[in-house]
């Protein structure tokens, strides 16, 4: 026990003296997690950034003017008036996410098309192809403004009255029994319009009647019940970057064993009356201790500075410990199968990057296609990242923690078993 504790102490001392390692394993994940966390929504209290939209207004009708005013008043958009050429150029350069062109005659044509009497006019929406999600959002907001303002104009505006008068005159010329019902409807519409005009004349503040959205949405972020502030984008980014850079520490640990084997240190250790198993056990223990401490420090910064909440501390410790053991066994695996430190480092970094990418460390796994999500269950980092997410912003209970712990320990046993088999084979 004295020998193992001395070896563990030595590894920790050497690690603490290695400033490059501390920078890579501690400072880098915090910096990158802060950056990605900010990009992915920060701590949830920041205002959503508005979408830049260019507006090309070629129609002077009241309806088009109201649509333009409605778009400019929308808190989700930042609308700038431009010419058609300017707008297209700005979208091409990526300075505007989309350009909306309301063509001349749109107001009248839209009114007629509302009752099916005329051809539907077209609003051109040009968009940045890298911003597909923006297109859907602009289209939705535009639809809302057009329906609201065109219907208001048709049911209570000058345009609607002219259209009704024109339609009635046409019907008088072609009087027939079949048109009687339509004549009656248009007559009633004119009566409604007259009453509406009288109402708005006496109440200047009143809005004209028109179609409005027949519902409102009540939006609620479903995350941890205990987190009053809701989703914190830093929670996922700290989990992802922490997992990635602590695995890099695991690589360094494995490379360290390979370097020791290349030098005389390994032989000197094995010449002592403790056996290779004890030497490897000590290295695994020190690796796990360092990994767990790094994880705790990284998340301590996340809690104190970036206000993430660890909703289930016990589960978090379990997930963290099992990840630390996983990291350590990963290091042993590299040491066991690596031929040279140089070749092993390249392969191990590549494998780690693939693992953290598939594990959802960079972007959450739920963004992956369904089949990839299923596939990545075979990747140990997926369980680590999901486990930390579950214990922080998702606020799940011990059952979720136990799943992550169990899966990580299974991978730990697999990696350590393979490493032990390989080391044993070499000793023979």
């Amino acid at each position, binding site marked *: 026990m*004295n*020998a193992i*504790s*001395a*070896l563990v102490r*030595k590894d920790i*001392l*050497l690690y603490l*003296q*290695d400033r490059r390692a501390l920078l890579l394993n501690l400072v880098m994940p915090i910096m990158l997690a802060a950056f990605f966390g900010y990009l992915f929504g920060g701590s949830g209290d920041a205002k959503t950034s508005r979408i830049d939209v260019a507006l090309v207004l070629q129609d002077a009708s009241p309806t088009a003017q109201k649509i333009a005013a409605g778009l400019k008043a929308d808190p989700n958009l930042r609308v700038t008036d431009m010419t058609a050429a300017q707008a297209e150029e700005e979208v091409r350069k990526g300075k505007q996410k989309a350009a909306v062109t309301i063509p001349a005659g749109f107001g009248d044509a839209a009114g007629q098309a509302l009752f099916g009497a005329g051809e539907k006019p077209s609003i051109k929406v040009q968009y940045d192809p890298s911003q597909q999600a923006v297109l859907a959002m602009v289209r939705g907001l535009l639809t809302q403004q057009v329906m609201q303002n065109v219907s208001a104009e048709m049911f209570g505006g000058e345009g609607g009255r002219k259209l009704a008068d024109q339609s009635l005159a046409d019907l008088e010329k072609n009087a027939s029994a079949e048109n009687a019902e339509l004549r009656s409807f248009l007559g009633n519409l004119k009566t409604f319009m007259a009453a509406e005009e009288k109402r708005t004349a006496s109440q200047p503040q009143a809005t004209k009647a028109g179609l409005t959205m027949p519902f409102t949405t009540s939006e609620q972020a479903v995350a941890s019940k205990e987190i009053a502030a809701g989703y914190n984008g830093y929670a996922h980014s700290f989990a992802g970057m922490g997992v990635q850079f602590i695995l890099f520490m695991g690589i360094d640990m494995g490379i360290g064993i390979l370097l020791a084997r290349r*030098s*005389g*240190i390994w*032989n*000197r*250790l*094995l*010449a*002592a*009356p*403790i*056996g*290779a*198993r*004890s030497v490897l056990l000590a290295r695994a223990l020190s690796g796990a201790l360092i990994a767990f401490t790094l994880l705790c420090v990284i998340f301590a910064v996340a809690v104190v500075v970036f206000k993430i909440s660890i909703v289930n501390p016990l589960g978090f410790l379990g997930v963290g410990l099992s990840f630390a053991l996983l990291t350590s066994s990963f290091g042993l695996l590299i040491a066991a199968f690596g031929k040279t430190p140089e070749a092993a480092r390249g392969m191990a970094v590549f494998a780690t990057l693939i693992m953290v990418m598939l594990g959802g460390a960079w972007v959450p796994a739920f963004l992956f296609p369904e089949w990839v999500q299923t596939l990545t269950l075979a990747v140990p980092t997926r369980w680590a990242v999901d486990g930390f997410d579950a214990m922080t912003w998702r606020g799940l209970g011990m059952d979720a923690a136990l799943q992550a712990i169990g899966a990580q320990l299974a991978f730990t046993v697999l990696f350590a078993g393979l490493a032990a088999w390989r080391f044993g084979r070499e*000793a*023979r």
Partner: protein
Amino acid sequence: MATELLRVTQLTKAYGGRRAVDGVSFTVNRGQTVGLLGPNGAGKSTTVGMICGLIAADSGSVSLEGQAVTTGACGAKRRIGFVPQDLALYEDLSALENLKLFAALYGLKGAHCRRRADEVLALVNLSERAHDKPATYSGGMKRRLNIAAALMHDPELLILDEPTVGVDPQSRNAIFDTLDRLKAEGCALIYTSHYMEEVERLADRIVIVDHGKVLVDDTPEGLFRKLPAHAALRVDFDSPVGDALLDGVRGCAGVTGVAREGDGIEIKLAAAADALPVMTWLSAQGARPTYFATARASLEDIFLNLTGRTLRD
């Protein structure tokens, strides 16, 4: 009466189809220094690895006074100190921390460990640099610390695998002084090196291995006796010598071989004392040497005589 400490019996080890060690046997007594020599690839390192318990033997045994040395956590390893050829030190730990770490592997701790570290550092003349990191040491100092780390647990047998590679003459002498003191204290040494003069200076017995087998195991004197020539005489003249003179030298007592070398001759002698009659005979013949020198046969002559001059990779 010499007491046997280490017994190596019929050790064999094969890698793939190649036998790296093939039935190696020898013994080492307490306080004795055995030089283990062999060309590259002869099986020295594998033999040392099996003696230290680093490599499992296919067959045969290694024991210290009957206590078997095996790979794993065997007790016999506590009695062996191993100085690897490479510097087996943690460069970012101080010398003292290095020594305490390696001592802990052998169960030393606390005040006893600290006291022993002071003794060992004094032995290798590094007391004043105890708190410095080996990264700041010269090559010779690192080599001395490399030896010190193997001495912390006060081993009965110290195995040194080329311990003086890349050190200056001063450091080499300091290392020899340390080994002399250890030997005087009763520590047995196995010393492997490619520097024949080192082995010649230190060894009480020399074991030469090649192709995995022991070629010879004898005292240095015994080895020299096995050579046809123990000494050589070099004589130069101001013009090339004739065949008649060569034949005449060949007929002198103690001469085992004669060869023409430029304007001179190289004469192999059974003993250094045979040089005088040869010089007397040459003088009697009216020969006027411009230069002459005698040389004793070296361990390198013995080594090359036994292992041949073919390059080994």
